[in-house]
């Protein structure tokens, strides 16, 4: 299957998915509003703490907001396009994974269009906090306009990294079938931890978040350069390299995992 026609397929799916989602209009609007509220209240919690005690280990409220927003938006991009990777367990338990293997396209490309998720709430919240943080830092002259395209770039590389972590975790399901508990650690807990500056954590833990589950590269490492001018401009290609490495590794692991698929009885 050519890349162009897969893209076409994906667009078709988005179109139909939006249309089918709109069948439940009320549900869609309510879910979006609730998601945005939950996300914003989560950030307000941090904001209140910061407001009371000042900066976290030298990170200002704007900077923490930036870390938070980049993580949210990266996750949103990942989950919008590849939500089904996160929900692979469902396919493994029901045996619906069988169906995907009978398609003449790579299994992952057959899996992703099964569902397209519209995460309006997360986009609104992440976008709002990001604009607010960047605007605040621009006012004080901490960052210039170049931060905008760089931020968009790291949101994308971040999405690739989160996707790779999600895919590698899902692949373990070919052996264990159940992966929800594992996802709690590798996806949810790790991501939540990286919403704060990693300097906050003991050395071993920040190493884990950079090496074992590389969520630190989604927001923390790039913002060292973008916001605080630490490290150097080499950070940006390095981040892209880390993302490419994660993606390649997780794809190889996924391909190996598929050959171990045991299906279900019927």
């Amino acid at each position, binding site marked *: 299957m050519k890349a162009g026609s897969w893209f076409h397929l994906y667009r078709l799916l988005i179109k139909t998915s939006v249309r089918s*989602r709109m069948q439940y209009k009320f549900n869609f609007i309510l879910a979006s509003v609730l998601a945005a509220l939950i996300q914003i209240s989560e950030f307000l919690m941090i904001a209140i703490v910061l407001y009371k005690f000042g900066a976290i280990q030298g990170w200002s409220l704007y900077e923490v907001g930036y870390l938070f927003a980049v993580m949210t938006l990266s996750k949103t991009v990942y989950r919008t396009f590849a939500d089904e990777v996160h929900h692979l367990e469902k396919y493994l338990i029901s045996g619906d994974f069988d169906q995907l293997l009978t398609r003449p396209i790579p299994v992952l490309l057959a899996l992703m269009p099964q569902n397209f998720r519209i995460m309006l709430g997360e986009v609104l919240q992440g976008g709002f906090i990001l604009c607010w943080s960047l605007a605040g830092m621009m006012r004080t002259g901490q960052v210039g306009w170049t931060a905008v395209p760089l931020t968009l770039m790291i949101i994308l590389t971040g999405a690739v990294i989160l996707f790779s972590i999600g895919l590698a975790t899902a692949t373990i399901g070919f052996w264990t079938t159940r992966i929800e508990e594992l996802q709690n650690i590798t996806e949810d807990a790790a991501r939540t931890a990286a919403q704060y500056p990693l300097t906050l954590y003991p050395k071993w833990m920040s190493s884990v978040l950079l090496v074992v589950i590389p969520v630190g590269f989604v927001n923390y490492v790039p913002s060292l350069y973008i916001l605080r001018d630490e490290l150097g401009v080499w950070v940006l290609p390095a981040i892209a390299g880390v993302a490419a490495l994660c993606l390649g590794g997780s794809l190889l692991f996924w391909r190996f995992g598929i050959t171990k698929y045991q299906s279900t009885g019927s």
Partner: protein
Amino acid sequence: MIEARDLHKEFKTAVVKEGRFSGLRTLFSREYRMKEAVRGISFQVERGEFVGYIGPNGAGKSTTIKMLTGILHPTSGEVSVGGYNPHRDRRKAVRQLGVVFGQRSQLWWDLPVKDSYDILAEMYGVTAAEKRQRLGRFAELLNLDEFWQTPVRKLSLGQRMRADIAAALLHDPELLFLDEPTIGLDVHAKVNIREFLRVLNRDFGKTILLTTHDMDDIEQLCGRVMVINHGTLTYDGSIPSLRETIGLPTRMTLKFRGPFQVPDNFAASASAGVFRILGVEGDTVRLEADRREIRAVDIIRELDGWGEIDDISMEEPEFEEVIRRFSSS
């Protein structure tokens, strides 16, 4: 069209520990139980055949189908489907396959049937014109117009099955795998599906491999039947010769006009060895015979000596019974 050579499939499952921390200990245990689901199956299916694949639950039917369709990798043995190995060249092999699992749908649950077809057409690189032409060909037979715009979740089981079969035909595959396509359907819907499958095989020349627990499906559709039990093929041939192999008795009921007499020494006679009297009630005699040992004509000739025969009826063994005997043997 399909070739399977000495297929084996073993499943490895961790032995579940008992007692304290059983979950954790199972996870780290190195103890496994091997279950051999398929042990050494070989067969060939030629273009245009309609083959029934039957056997009791857990016999290895689904496992075989899954190996043929590239879903499971065999532990050892070779598969070739339309010239491709579904494990090395999965994408090329499955392009020529239509697969229908009766138990689950390949359509998008929340979308109208028509949208699912659009997505599948895009996935298989089928042009809009081809799609229209192919669906048009079957639209009437499957009555697709009836639910064209309906979301899949609102379809009846019969409609869903028709929609699913049409979906499997969208890319015009040579070969169809149908796993229990009539499961759970009412009699009327079953007849519809069967009729359609017959047309597909006879008029469109599709090669079909069908698994089912409904013996009527097999008897009415399949020219050839393969029986699997405990992971091995126990029979591969036509339905009449399957009946013969089993040698289930044919039941006969003979009605006499006027008085008749069962010979006193019948039990000791040579005939008693080849047919058995089940009962005598009024003017009728019920008996059963193994047709491999005695012809029906010879039985009638024998009984003609007992009195004047008025009427005869014969009952072939039920196919269901044939299979049951076969599977339990």
